[in-house]
């Protein structure tokens, strides 16, 4: 699963910085984030609340709520810059070229319209199709995402679907115009485990069949372990480690990733105590100097509080940690 052809990246994010101006000064929520996603690749982005993972996703689909703004950096989709497009142009990119799946399927759907109407509208916005053609495509999409009795269900309202089925409808909406990239922000978090498994399976199958790349933002390492090819771990607005999924999970390089992996209980092993990282993620107003993790890091040395480490090669991954720099 880890072998993805290294073609030209579909999505390239370069030095992304997201800021929120406030009365007490500017808060930098995403800091110098650089990564790329190849066509057909699933990149997992993990981190705890406030790490900036969802904002990174929102920046890519151009949905950062004002007063937040992209202050620096570039986002390129298939070579074309999309971070500075006018609102209307971005609207066509979003949907046509980038699909979005959010955590709560109920808020992503309009409760007043049938799912069919929402699908047909989305399809016709992005593809030159007649009403009838669009409806046939909508039924196909619903069938594809595994909704039984799609021809009948298309005229139902969102509240007539269960949580898992609603998330399938949202995925169908995201796929409506056959986008090259899907940004999925916690797509399974609101679902029960058995439904979560179905949705993960579905997303994996669709990506394989359509060659769609996915940026999967979640706090659930288990979901990442099963779905992603590569993982980026975020902490306090920065990527602290990025690498192939098996390496990040089984051979983590950054002390934060080590602590994070150790703190996750697993049903495959018995442990007396979980590894704990003392303290909590710093607030945006008080990001420590140097490496933002140094006050919680068991291996911190003087340099860590003075100088910020950039991503450097560490094992098969890259980690932003002075411990990994060549001596």
């Amino acid at each position, binding site marked *: *699963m*880890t072998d993805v052809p290294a073609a030209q990246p579909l999505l390239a994010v370069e030095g992304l910085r997201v800021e929120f101006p406030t009365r007490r000064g500017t808060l930098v929520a995403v800091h110098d984030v650089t990564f790329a996603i190849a066509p057909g690749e699933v990149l997992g982005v993990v981190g*705890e*609340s406030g790490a900036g993972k969802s904002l990174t996703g929102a920046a890519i689909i151009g949905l950062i709520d004002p007063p937040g703004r992209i202050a620096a950096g570039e986002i390129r989709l298939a070579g074309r810059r999309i971070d500075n497009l006018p609102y209307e142009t971005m609207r066509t990119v979003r949907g046509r070229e980038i699909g979005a799946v959010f955590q709560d399927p109920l808020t992503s759907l309009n409760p007043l319209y049938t799912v069919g109407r929402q699908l047909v509208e989305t399809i016709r916005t992005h593809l030159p199709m007649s009403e009838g053609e669009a409806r046939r495509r909508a039924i196909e999409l619903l069938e594809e995402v595994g909704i039984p009795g799609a021809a009948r269900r298309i005229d139902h309202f969102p509240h007539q679907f*269960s949580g*898992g*089925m609603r998330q399938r409808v949202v995925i169908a909406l995201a796929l409506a115009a056959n986008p090259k990239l899907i940004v999925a922000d916690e797509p399974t978090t609101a679902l*029960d*485990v*058995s*439904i*979560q*498994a*179905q949705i*993960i*399976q579905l997303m994996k199958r669709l990506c394989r069949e359509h060659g769609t790349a996915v940026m999967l933002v979640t*706090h*659930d*390492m*288990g*979901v990442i*372990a*099963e779905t992603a090819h590569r993982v980026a771990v975020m902490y306090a607005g920065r990527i602290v480690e990025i690498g192939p*999924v*098996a390496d990040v*999970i*089984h051979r983590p390089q950054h002390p934060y990733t080590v*602590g*994070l*992996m*150790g*703190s*996750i*209980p*697993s*049903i*495959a092993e*018995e*442990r007396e*105590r*979980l*590894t*704990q*990282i*003392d303290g*909590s*993620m710093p607030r945006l107003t008080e990001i420590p100097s140097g490496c933002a993790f140094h006050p919680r890091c068991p291996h911190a040395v003087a340099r860590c509080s003075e100088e910020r480490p950039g991503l450097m090669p560490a094992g098969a991954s890259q980690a932003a940690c002075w411990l990994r720099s060549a001596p």
Partner: protein
Amino acid sequence: MTELVKLEGVARYFDVSPPWLNRVLEGRGRVILRAVDGVDLTIRKGETVGLVGESGCGKSTVARVIVGLYAPTRGTVRYDEVAIAGEGAASDPRALRRARRGMQMIFQDPYASLNPRWRVAEIVAEPIRSQAPDTPRGEIAARVADLLCQVGLAAADGAKYPHQFSGGQRQRISIARALSTNPAFLVCDEPTSALDVSVQAQVLNLMRDLQRGLGLTYLFISHNLAVVHHIADRVGVMYLGRIVELAPTRDLFADPQHPYTRMLLDAVPDLTMTGEARTAVAGEVPNPLDPPPGCAFHPRCPYADERCRREVPALRAVGGSSDGQAACHAVEEDRLSPRVVPIAAR
């Protein structure tokens, strides 16, 4: 080990009927939601019993019936051999109060369960004030400071307000409040579900340390199987208001009996399963207002036969050395195929 809490055939129904006028005008009948429908469960002193299940299976209702937030519709709740709720409940208010004092509850959302206008010291002291109103002030203050230190906060934090704390710290405050009356039994309803994993690890470690130090008994409710696997000694799996399997944690995870337990375990995404394909789980939990007849799991069960569609299976001891129980006709008749890969061996 002695029994501390015992549920005997406990059921809790909710009347979710439309208003009377609608029923009359639209000719609709009453609608009864059987949130918990006949649960037998024994919790022994000093152990942690985990209760898992998907949303709507009734696990939180069980918790609320035990601590007395809901009265059981049927059945009896016993605490330390005193029937505290339901049929045959003790009528002596002093005995009831004494029993109630022994149990406390920790809730899921540390943002909603602490009064934002109270200082932490007042929050932690409230149970002491209500249960032993004549405790001298100095003694309460000393106890509060002691409790805050016990849960890993500083005594000086008592002067702050809840909004000054992070989610994990708030959950520590909830734990301090629950411990303030020296309970023997804590009901924890998804105590770590709202927390980030690294903070969850801190809270789980703290709960385990407190259990060792104070000899606490826990009923730990969670939808997260890995968390329950970590913390519980025995695990009960609930489905649509009933316990379908109850077994020591190791046995349940290594050799699950009930088809629903097997399905749940197969569905859990785990770090060890990098890139592996997994068995997809068919179907969804049926509408609890209209549960299927017989075994409620039969529409999703690969082993269901005529008897399963007709007859509700009872929780029975299953073979082997363990004291596990399962409510399944197929298990009882030995119709199940052996499970190919036990999770623990992967």
